[in-house]
């Protein structure tokens, strides 16, 4: 088959690759010869990613304490089912009830979006292939599993649809920005609303800025903004946007971590305020 592809696409059919079992490699059996603490990074990644997954799943199942006027937790935004404490678009979708699970928490109606976006993110793929899959655990350290198919088979081949999840993620940035704007509008003691700023407002803004940094430094974003162009001189505006995205793209892993923390902490903050455990400091005008 490879021969035919090479012919169709103008590659040269070259001699056979010196391969085969062992192919007379250096007779060194050690899985690796590294002396540094190569295991520290995958271990730390494992601990942080796993803790986030545990916390966010727990928070999504709570179906309570996700709204402390005027703050809405990012895990529950946009809140679109009828039972929402704070429905984002007025009404809401009918509640879904399942056997065993009971009422479906509105968090699950939205979490699939950001969830799939992060799961298929090029950076997180690197992070979890190293720390969970151990393929490879670190550079020049042997893969733990014998067989390997990379991202050529179901389900991992689906990560090639990362771009679709990016389109969805952009919509989430719009919604979360709206939530952050509403976080300036506090309920007035005598009814109605008054403007102000609270610690929660700042928390929500930091979160949405970091999430936007993460979303717009994405590799798929870089590609759609201009990465697909071969003659930049003929597409100056796309070149401009591409150059901008290319500037923040190297910070994508940093944004990935910071926004992961900020989204969890924003939920936690709003949860604690809503439970009455901490008091939100605020100034209203």
């Amino acid at each position, binding site marked *: 088959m490879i021969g035919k592809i090479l012919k169709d696409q*103008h590659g040269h059919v070259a001699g056979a690759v010196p391969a085969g079992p062992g192919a007379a490699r250096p007779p060194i059996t050690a899985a690796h010869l*590294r002396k540094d603490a190569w295991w520290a990074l995958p271990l730390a990644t494992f601990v942080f990613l796993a803790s986030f997954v545990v916390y966010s799943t727990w928070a999504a199942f709570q179906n309570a304490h996700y709204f402390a006027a005027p703050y809405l937790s990012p895990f529950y935004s946009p809140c679109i089912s009828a039972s929402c404490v704070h429905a984002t678009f007025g009404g809401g979708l009918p509640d879904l009830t399942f056997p065993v699970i009971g009422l479906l928490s509105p968090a699950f109606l939205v979490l699939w979006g950001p969830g799939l976006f992060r799961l298929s993110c090029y950076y997180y793929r690197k992070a979890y292939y190293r720390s969970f899959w151990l393929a490879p655990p670190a550079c020049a350290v042997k893969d733990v599993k014998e067989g390997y198919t990379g991202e050529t088979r179901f389900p991992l081949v689906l990560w090639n649809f990362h771009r679709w999840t990016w389109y969805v993620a952009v919509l989430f940035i719009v919604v979360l920005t709206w939530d952050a704007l509403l976080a300036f509008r506090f309920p007035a003691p005598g009814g109605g609303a008054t403007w102000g700023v609270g610690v929660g407002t700042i928390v929500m803004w930091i979160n949405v800025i970091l999430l936007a940094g993460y979303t717009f430094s994405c590799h798929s974003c870089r*590609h759609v903004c201009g990465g697909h162009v071969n003659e930049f001189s003929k597409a100056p505006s796309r070149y401009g946007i591409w150059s901008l995205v290319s500037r923040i793209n190297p910070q994508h892993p940093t944004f990935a971590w910071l926004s992961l923390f900020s989204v969890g902490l924003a939920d936690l903050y709003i949860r604690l305020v809503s439970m009455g455990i901490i008091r939100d400091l605020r100034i209203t005008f």
Partner: protein
Amino acid sequence: MATTFTLRLFRGDAKGGTFRDYPVESEEGMVVLDLVHRVQASQAPDLACRWNCKAGKCGSCSAEVNGQPRLMCMTRMDLFQPGETISIAPIRTFPIIRDLVTDVSYNYVKAKQVPPLRLKPPEADGTYRMMQEDIDRIQEFHKCIECFLCQDVCHVIRDHEEKKTSFAGPRFFIKIAGLDMHPLDTVDRSRFMKDAAGIGLCNITKCCTEVCPEHIHITDNGIIPLKERLADEMDPVVWLLRKFRGVKPKTNA
């Protein structure tokens, strides 16, 4: 001031071999290759090692120093603790010839398979025009010195020998990227990338980028953009925009 180190060198060939220790002195400013040469000059005249420029530009002196793929001539001795025992192994992904020398011809086979550039017809006045911004991106890939450290570290072939037939490796992904992003290119390499070069086997774990002595962003600027180019085929938005604009994809007619 001289410091003594122990070089633990791999000695042997395909039939068998072991690591042997050589105590050797290092002066200020020396690199690993200097010490290997000292061992060769004083203790092991039959030690096989490949080198050429001693300036990080020929890509011959690739080895695994303390288990990490590196150029021996660019690895300074002040990286190590005085007195440390430093292991030096051949690049393990390729068949061994002897001691630190391996047979890297896998890479030459893969190089030949890459569909080369096919230029567009010239402009009306018979010339070609390219602007600097058109080629900035691909110039990065041209810094490659073919040391094959990225090929050595890539777990797809390092840990799965059988993948050598269906996988081209990071060095050739940036080669393909350099051609595919070329402003005058006309070749469609999509099936080649997927089915002959095996880009889907790369799980973007970025070890190639970590070891590249030329600091080429192999994954971020080469492999991922290529994966994204392939993803265009499945993107309805791109399809619509192309229809609307009348952009024709590359073909091999």
